[in-house]
């Protein structure tokens, strides 16, 4: 079911959809995140390969350190040839310089992986958020701020984590492999002893990942709750002050922050357990080697230099690498999985395809008046569900060139729904709406949106120049075109006050609702749209300004439909549609005054002459 927010049949009114947080399975979220990362990193394969190539050079000191020190001892310092020893150490120094060069050369490759990844994620979040709200999903008050939080925080975490992992995890993995290879070449007998400790440590590491992932995810959700709640509070600061509810709101936010702190502590406790991995994997091999060393040296299996080299592999390469792996890198992997999972969930919306209605036979224009109809409605019926009362049923209308139609009726009767039907944003269940005889569902989406403009109550003004806002629907509009629109719609003073067309509107919310409506109206006036539907688009203007704007649109070529906010709009139109449940009536102001009880009632309540109270 499409969801429009306003004027919806009461059956579905309560059901603003809301992402059920935390319900998504932990592992499912992680898997989705994994898929997202794999998808987004796929095009960066070549840069990744180059990173890998440099990594091999980066591992050179780790591979050689033990072997070179062993040679320096056995054949140099202990053999009375210090010169040879120094030469070996110089070789080690050279290997270390190679490593620095490799790291330096690798940075542009890392940037070439990470920066495009961030760009792709930003695009994904922005596109996903737009699609979600356009599809009517996540239209609740909290969702937009959550999308914005995703943009700033989660995308950034994803970028930073990927960067850190590429820098550190890759390097640590290279170090561990290089050290083990070096050890195997230098002192094969030690390798089984090391593996004896390393294998259980690895098993423990993997076992602890699950609980950690859950707590990590709880923390991310707690973060999101804070940004959701804060967004809602910021949006309603005025109301909070007016209600004197600062304490209660602060307490609520405080509770969210406390929950986040508790989630952080729970995660820290679970992380502390992982220190045992460092103990088992990093320190135990050394203890074992020291215990068996006297035996190995005595029976000649290892020379003193080889033993020293083996110890160096363990102390200098393996143990620090393992410590870093468990202490930080494990966290990063989990965090990345969780954050990427949330991003994957957010971007999962696909754009809804336009459903096509069954073809309408005899699509020729039905001429009601002498002039051919620009916009006509033929026997249209629409309801928000099979059991809901129809918003319109059997509606016939024809609006000719230069026609000016007003739509009036009590609030909640479905005026905005009618506007959406006339614009082809909703498809009728029966009948058709035609633009110059062509059914709307046969017109390509792009042309349809260009030719029919709907201006909603909440005017859209965005941060940018005044010109960008005014030329929103006609990019490249000339100053002359803008001048005319601004003058006729009645916002010349406003534009002057803002500082002209090229003034920057840094914060659109600083404009009053009426000022935003004026800018949106001028933008639509400039547009090439043939049919303009004002859906209470002037409700925040004072009556004089509203009348001026409506007069400007009435004089504009094409067709004007005004969903009336004040009854005065009806008086100005040449035809009026009175919506009264299932019984729409069309006529001129005078006809309706005489013929429609509801219209007379609506008009009677709204008179320009003051009448005494009571």
């Amino acid at each position, binding site marked *: 079911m499409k969801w429009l927010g306003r004027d919806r049949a009461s059956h579905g009114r309560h059901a603003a959809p809301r992402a059920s947080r935390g319900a998504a399975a932990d592992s499912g979220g992680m898997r989705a995140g994994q898929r997202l990362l794999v998808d987004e990193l796929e095009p960066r394969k070549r840069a990744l390969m180059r990173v890998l190539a440099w990594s091999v050079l980066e591992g050179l000191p780790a591979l050689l350190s033990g072997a070179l020190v062993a040679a320096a001892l056995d054949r140099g310092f202990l053999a009375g040839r210090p010169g040879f020893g120094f030469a070996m150490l110089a070789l080690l120094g050279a290997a270390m*310089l190679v490593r620095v060069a490799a790291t330096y050369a690798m940075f542009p490759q890392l940037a070439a992986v990470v920066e495009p990844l961030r760009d792709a994620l930003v*695009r994904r979040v922005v596109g996903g958020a737009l699609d979600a709200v356009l599809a009517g999903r996540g239209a*609740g008050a909290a969702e937009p701020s959550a999308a914005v939080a995703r943009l700033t925080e989660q995308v950034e975490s994803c970028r930073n984590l990927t960067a850190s992992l590429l820098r550190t995890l890759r390097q640590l993995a290279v170090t561990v492999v290089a050290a083990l290879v070096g050890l195997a070449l230098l002192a094969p007998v030690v390798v089984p002893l090391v593996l004896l400790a390393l294998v259980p440590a690895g098993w423990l590491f993997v076992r602890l990942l699950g609980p950690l992932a859950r707590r990590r995810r709880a923390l991310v959700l707690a973060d999101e709750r804070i940004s959701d709640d804060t967004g809602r509070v910021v949006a309603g600061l005025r109301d909070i002050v007016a209600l004197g509810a600062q304490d209660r709101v602060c307490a609520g936010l405080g509770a969210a922050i406390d929950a986040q702190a508790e989630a952080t502590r729970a995660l820290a406790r679970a992380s502390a357990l992982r220190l045992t991995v460092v103990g088992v994997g990093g320190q135990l091999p050394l203890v074992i080697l020291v215990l068996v060393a006297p035996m190995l040296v005595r029976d000649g299996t290892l020379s003193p230099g080889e033993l020293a080299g083996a110890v160096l592999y363990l102390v200098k390469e393996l143990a620090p690498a393992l410590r870093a792996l468990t202490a930080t890198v494990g966290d990063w992997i989990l965090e990345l999985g969780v954050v990427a999972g949330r991003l994957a969930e957010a971007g999962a919306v696909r754009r809804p395809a336009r459903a096509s209605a069954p073809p309408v036979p005899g699509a020729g224009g039905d001429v009601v008046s002498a002039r051919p109809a620009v916009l006509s409605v033929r026997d249209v019926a629409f309801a928000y569900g099979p059991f809901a009362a129809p918003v319109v049923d059997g509606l016939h209308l024809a609006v000719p060139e230069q026609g000016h139609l007003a739509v009036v009726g009590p609030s909640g009767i479905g005026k905005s729904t009618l506007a959406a039907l006339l614009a082809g944003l909703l498809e009728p269940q029966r009948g058709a709406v035609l633009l110059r005889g062509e059914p709307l569902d046969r017109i390509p989406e792009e042309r349809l*949106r260009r030719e029919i403009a709907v201006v909603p109550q909440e005017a859209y003004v965005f941060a940018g120049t005044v010109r960008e806002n005014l030329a929103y629907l006609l990019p490249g509009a000339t100053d002359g075109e803008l001048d005319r629109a601004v003058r006729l719609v009645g916002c010349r003073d406003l534009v002057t006050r803002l500082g002209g067309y090229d003034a920057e509107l840094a914060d659109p919310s600083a404009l009053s609702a009426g000022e935003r409506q004026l800018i949106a109206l001028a933008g639509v006036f400039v547009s090439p749209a043939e049919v303009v539907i004002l859906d209470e688009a002037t409700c925040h203007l004072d*009556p004089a300004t509203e009348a001026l704007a409506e007069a400007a649109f009435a004089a504009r070529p094409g067709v004007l439909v005004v969903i009336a906010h004040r009854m005065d709009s009806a008086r100005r139109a040449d035809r009026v549609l009175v919506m009264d449940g299932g019984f729409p009536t069309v006529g001129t102001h005078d006809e309706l005054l005489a013929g429609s009880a509801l219209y007379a009632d609506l008009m009677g309540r709204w008179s320009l002459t003051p009448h005494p109270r009571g």
Partner: protein
Amino acid sequence: MVQATHLFERYQEIQGRISARLADALGGVRTIRACGTRDREESRVLGPLPELSAVGHGLWRAQRRAVAQVLLLAPVVEIAVLAVAGWCLAEGRIAPGGMVAAAGYAALGLGFLEQLESLVGVAHARAGLRRTDELLSVPAAPHGHVRHLPPGGGELAFHSVSVRTGDRALLSDVDLTVPAGTCLALVGASGSGKSLLAALPGRLRDPDAGEVRVDGLPVTALARRESARAVGYAFGDPVLFGTDIRDALSFGHPAPDTVDIGPAAAIARTDGFVRALPAGYATPVSELALSGGELQRLGLARAIVGDTRVLVLDDATSGLDTVTEHQVMDAVHNRLAGRTRIVVAHRATTAAQADYVAWLDRGRVRAVGTHAELWHDSDYRAVFAGGAVSAVGSGDAVLSEGERG
């Protein structure tokens, strides 16, 4: 480090721009849907992305230099330690094990250097701290310590009140007294300062000069939050807080559990649509999808529940159809007659129902009187009169009318 902090600030600033653009676009969803401009919106929001990417690459270059400096230091130290230890070993001053120990200690010492990279995080934190400081340096509005209004019926007085923004005067020298228990309508063209004047008694904004008194007490003398007990507000676009509708209507009330929302709900006529919800007044606020008029009626009910001496209705019924609005306003005037009411009026009928009208024109009080008295002035009628203007016809001809308003 300084350069990295600077780059981080730039990075965050560009990110902020993208976020602001996305937030704008999400707020304009109905327009974007109606205009089919989704793809253009996407590229507009993503406009600053190349710049973000450029600064991002700059951050990598800064990091590369820092990392290379640290990495160059390590081999020098390590090789020097090993060489000295090897020399001592050759001289017989230490055992082979001593050399291993020396190398181990050197590795431990250099491990600290690896942590230097985490100083990049410090740069990040410093940039964030600067942004937080901007917020924390905003001074809080001063409050007094008076917990209760003096006895009275809610007399409201503005004394030489002025509000400015930059050089522009939004309200100039407004002197106005609203007798207790009466209703004052604020009338004026868009931008004449109606809502701003109405915002002052509840301290939604403080005047730059002059003061506002309720029953003789300056509102600034009231303790924090007590002004909300003195003055209640209903807005055109209320934001609801709380768990369910019942909670939302008593939100901010000192005793939310004991308060009866029934009378307020009856005056604001919320029962009709709330009862149609599956859980009625227990429906969670987060699941509500209401029309503007329904939301306004809940906002009005919430203001009435507050039981304040002064009640301000700022555009509070603009989303209602004329029939419902008439019923609601009748109930407000008849059943809340004891409270002082300020109504920001766009329609003549609303002004006609008030005891007095204050007619605002560009931030000044142009006249005060009853609606019937003021109605003789054609300029006053022009504030409401759409009809007279539209009769003129072409847009060019009516422009002077519009500019005068």
